[in-house]
């Protein structure tokens, strides 16, 4: 594996993040006490599977099978570690970059990718069944939805927890602020999970905010924590703590997971215009997957056979998903109208008929 580069990405500077496994794979913190070998291997497996699928999606886009696709390479630990800390009925409000989280929530990858295939908005999976909300593009707006959902569960006296994912750039939006403040006032069972991957398209975190994101929490009256987002065990641990607090009725937590966007913002983006390859190479030295593998194998939780098996499974899975995606037909014309209203007005139905008649013409 690559030697950890002496210089971590610029946006990791400042307060020390929580860490369990160092970039070189050595154990530097307390292991989560509730993860047995099976669980530890699962964490690794999911990261590998997600990484491989990401590559496949980029290929699919290049081949015209997907429209613009936003990759997650480098952010697997932040997503797998946090998703693993959630209960079955806990609800996830994602952005557009949480494919790994979606997989762990049991969202069908082929269905999920319909969003990027351009056959449906929001994602055609059932958000209620998967407890994974619709993909959300308007930055930070889903945080407000998450706060409302958390409020709804709280009013139902349920102990379900809600988690909102968002990026460093999202913390600059008014919606993030209003939702976070509301969460504080109502002590909502909400985890605010920020993947600070250093970039908002071409804008580095330093140009996004002058403060440390996790420190925002204090102003809202709840705790914030900074974690090494490329350390899957540390991410799992801080998220588990935040989920426990929320479930116990102790309110929200803001988690800033320091990670790095290895790929371009999306397949439509040319990162070469705004960042230097050496920086990206440097960041690769902090890649979450080899780091965790080193520890996992070193600690005897896995061997080369397991590692190979994961790669193999990832390969097969990626190809199965590819087949599924390529096979999905475009939606029928009616779908542009079918679900706009639960009670469609007569004027709307007349226009739908006009539209469908035109289509057939």
């Amino acid at each position, binding site marked *: 594996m690559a030697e950890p580069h002496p210089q971590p990405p610029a946006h990791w500077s400042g307060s020390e993040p929580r860490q369990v496994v160092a970039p070189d794979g050595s154990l530097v913190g307390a292991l989560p006490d509730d993860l047995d070998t099976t669980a530890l291997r699962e964490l690794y497996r999911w990261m590998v599977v997600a990484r491989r699928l990401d590559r496949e999606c980029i290929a699919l886009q290049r081949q015209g099978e997907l429209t613009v696709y936003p990759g997650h390479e480098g952010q697997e630990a932040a997503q797998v570690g946090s998703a693993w800390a959630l209960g079955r009925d806990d609800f996830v409000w994602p952005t557009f970059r949480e494919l790994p989280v979606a997989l762990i929530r049991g969202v069908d990858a082929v269905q999920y990718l319909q969003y990027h295939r351009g056959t449906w908005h*929001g994602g055609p999976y059932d958000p209620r069944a998967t407890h994974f909300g619709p993909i959300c593009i308007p930055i930070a707006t889903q945080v407000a939805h998450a706060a409302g959902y958390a409020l709804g569960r709280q009013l139902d006296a349920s102990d379900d927890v809600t988690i909102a994912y968002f990026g460093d750039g999202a913390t600059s939006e*008014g919606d993030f602020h209003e939702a976070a403040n509301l969460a504080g006032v109502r002590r909502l069972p909400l985890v605010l999970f920020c993947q600070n991957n250093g970039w908002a398209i071409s804008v580095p975190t330093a140009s996004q905010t002058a403060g440390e994101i996790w420190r925002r929490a204090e102003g809202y009256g709840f705790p914030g924590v900074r974690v090494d987002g490329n350390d899957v065990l540390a991410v799992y641990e801080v998220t588990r703590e935040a989920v426990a607090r929320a479930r116990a009725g102790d309110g929200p937590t803001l988690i800033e997971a320091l990670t790095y966007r290895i790929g371009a913002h999306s397949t439509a983006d040319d990162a070469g215009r705004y960042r230097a390859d050496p920086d990206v190479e440097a960041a690769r030295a902090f890649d979450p997957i080899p780091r965790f593998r080193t520890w996992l194998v070193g600690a005897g939780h896995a061997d080369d056979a397991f590692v190979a098996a994961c790669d193999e499974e990832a390969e097969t899975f990626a190809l199965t998903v590819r087949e599924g995606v390529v096979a999905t037909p475009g939606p029928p014309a009616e779908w542009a109208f079918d679900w706009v209203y639960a009670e469609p007005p007569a004027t709307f139905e007349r226009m739908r008929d006009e539209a469908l008649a035109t289509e057939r013409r």
Partner: protein
Amino acid sequence: MTEWTLSRALNEALRHALRADGRVLVFGEDVGVSGGVFRVTDGLQAEFGDTRVFDTPISEAAIVGSAVGLAFAGWRPVIELQFDAFSYPAFEQIVDHVAKMRMRTRGRVDMPITIRIPSFGGIKGKEHHGESPETYYAHTAGLKVVVPSNPQDGYALLQHAIRDPDPVVVLEPKARYWTKGHVDLTADEREIGRGRVIRDGRDVTLVAYGSMVARITEAAAQLADAGIDARVVDLRSLSPLPDDLLRACAEQTGRIVVVHEAPRHAGFGAEIAARTMELAFDSLAAPIARVTGWDAPYPPASLEDGYLPSVDRIVAVTKETVAY
């Protein structure tokens, strides 16, 4: 039959909804203990408790955004945005999410959200307290938009809006909050999407909504003295548009005058005119006229009377239309 102000009628509609459906929530700025700037939520928190009726921070985007999340959690949010212009900070949440979310989930999640917005001018209020936002919302596919002009409609439309599985924007005319009228508590026709003929007439049809309904009614009375028999239509629903009624009016009176407070340019009157022309072009004996606010920002209180369509202006334009 009871005699209520529009404010009271809306208040009773909310009370009724809170009683009838345990999933109904009422929230917004100052809707709790204070009972709302216009008293529309008066007494509701006392009766239903602060889990059903509560104040929020001054965060319009979060008020609307949280309503979306609450709908996912199976609640039926009825939110108040304190004044017309203060719905704009939530515009993104309303247009991008409230209006589109049901479609995005392929109908798996309904958005039974009611957005109450005290709207329009005529109360000599401060700036940003006299805006007419109806066109912004009516043009947004996925929303339904209604405007009650009297206590009876307020009582009925708000209840229907709350019961509706789709998002409904209820624009409440501030200038009419304190006007009393009879309310038949038993009336329960399916209201949304239907306009009402308030006064029949053969020569011309005056169409309006909200506070302007009172003015076209008064104008019709003056026109009658001048020998012009004007029909008076309260549109009540801007989206969906009661276009059968508009067609009928065009066919039966041949002449139509539309009145609203909003600026004329790209205002809702344009849709009424364009749609009616599409439906009944051959019946039109004169161009559909628009009597509206001017294409300038809503003016200070002292200039309000010159900005809003006056009965005189309505009468004058109607006479021209009839004489055309």
